[in-house]
């Protein structure tokens, strides 16, 4: 489903994120593991086409991202990738259901209210659709963020530290929800986490090597 080959991405502070070879199949669920600051977010952003690595091949669902212009990459991302960011950020000016409608519109899809309603029901926040984000608890916001990430049925679902600040029960629930939604959407799931509680819950693991100090 996706393929990373010989990735090197260097930051100004002379450290570099490297991934030699990583292939994941369709529908697989992966843990991207590594200590804080090891570049997990950077790899997720490379997979989402938000960062173009200085070296290496990024191929997602058959598309070599280096061949796309920036605008094309933006549109491709909207249709192909669902991202649950570390800060469960929703657009505060919009109600819960409008946040999902916005995701559909930005991906160039017609707004599908039935899909939005079913999805919010599926993640257990059906009664919150008319609320504004600041009226939600942390757990509710995460559910809405997951729903928003899968609303366009992406082929790749990325989650950045989804269990941070959650207790054991809620961490397990969040992972379960991500896996269930990935299965429902038919998406490959990649969870970036340094949380040891996550490891037993995902079948595939990719450990990031420590950051390389660039010469």
């Amino acid at each position, binding site marked *: 489903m996706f393929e990373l080959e010989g990735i090197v991405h260097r930051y100004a502070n002379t450290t570099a994120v490297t991934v030699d070879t990583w292939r994941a199949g369709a529908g697989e669920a992966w843990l991207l593991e590594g200590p804080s600051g090891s570049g997990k977010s950077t790899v997720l952003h490379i997979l989402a086409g938000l960062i173009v690595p200085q070296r290496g091949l990024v191929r997602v669902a058959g598309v070599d991202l280096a061949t796309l212009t920036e605008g094309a990459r*933006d549109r491709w991302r909207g*249709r192909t990738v669902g991202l649950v*960011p*570390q800060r469960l950020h929703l657009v505060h000016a919009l109600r819960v259901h409008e946040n999902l409608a*916005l995701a559909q519109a*930005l991906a160039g899809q017609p707004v599908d209210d039935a899909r939005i309603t079913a999805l919010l029901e599926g993640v257990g926040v059906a009664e919150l659709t008319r609320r504004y984000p600041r009226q939600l608890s942390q757990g509710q916001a995460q559910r809405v963020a997951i729903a928003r990430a899968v609303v366009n049925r992406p082929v790749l679902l990325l989650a*950045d530290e989804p269990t941070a600040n959650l207790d054991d029960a809620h961490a397990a629930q969040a992972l379960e929800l991500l896996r269930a939604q990935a299965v429902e959407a038919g998406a490959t799931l990649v969870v970036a986490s340094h949380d040891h509680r996550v490891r037993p819950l995902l079948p595939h693991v990719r450990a990031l090597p420590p950051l390389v100090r660039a010469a």
Partner: protein
Amino acid sequence: MNIARLALAYLRRRPLSTALVVALLAIGVAVVTLTLLLTHELETRLQRDAAGIDLVVGAKGSPLQLVLAGVYHVDVPPGNIPLAAITQLRADPRVTRVIPLSLGDNLRGFRIVGTEPALVELYGGVLAQGALWTVPLDAVLGSDVARATGLAVGGTFAGAHGLAAGGGEHGDAQYRVTGVLAPTGSVLDRLVLTGLESVWAVHEHRPLPADGKAEAAHDAHDDDREVTLALLKFRSPLAAATLARAIDKDTEWVAASPAFETARLLTVFGAGVDLVRAFALVLMAASALMLFVALAQALEDRRYDMAILRTLGATRGKVAGVLLVEGIALAAVGTVIGLLLAHGAVLGIAHWRPDAAPLAAAAWRWLPVEWAVVALAMGTGILSALWPAWRASRLDVAATLAEG
């Protein structure tokens, strides 16, 4: 859910700054537009009242005063000129028309003007009812006069001394209304017209000839009779200039050009208008600055929002577009409200001040120069939004998400 709706959702979330930007811009646009509408109306009226009058000839004094008294009927005339002057001017081949005017009395503030039917023709006056004057103390009312006094054909009134309301009445000389004019939109609407002989009769307290014929009175006292001033039209502008110089040099009279005096008056008036307009432009600039600050603040507050929009598939252009649409929407709403306020104010002035009633038509008129106001207001709005929008388009999405 497109970027326009997203932009409006953001505006709704900060009502105070939205309202402030709109209010400042609206007031600025309103004041500029109001000055444009009122000066345009003033200039139009001044020109219409002076149309067809190349020169005003009267007694020695200020030319401006002569024009104000003789053309616009707002000042007292400097004095009188002999009736012989009219005859002399009429004999000049360069002059195509001479209309004598005798001023001195009023009817409840409306001036009673002794003249000839040519004055009615000059302003394109048409009788709404009755007929023009034929014998002394016949009077024809302008439309505003008829409406304000309630007088109609057959009614009678006594003129009062002076040109403003409140002077002593000539109780023994009763005017009789023989006609009422239809509205012309000119100064004619506010005048009471009568024959020159009426003014002489009222002021000289001489008994009128028994048969009341105008010619009889005219012939009897031609030599010592006077009129206040004369309105002249010439064959060519050059003739006007040479004759004006000749009159000023060789006679006891003054020749004043309404076009010239009006232009001078508008220059003085224009300085005040410019000051008001400058103040309005400062308001518009303040509004643009407020808009800039509001959008720059939004840029900071929404960095993460914008990063999320990008992860959801928005291009750089769309993210910038949200801020641009916010700027354009505020500018558009402010502009529309400002224009409505200005036109509404003109309508209000026309409604509450009876003497400004003709302004009502101006309230519904769209001047081409108002497009310039629209362009200016929209332009400053868009300009204020450009830099924040450009910054939004340069956002580093991955770095912003990583800040979390």
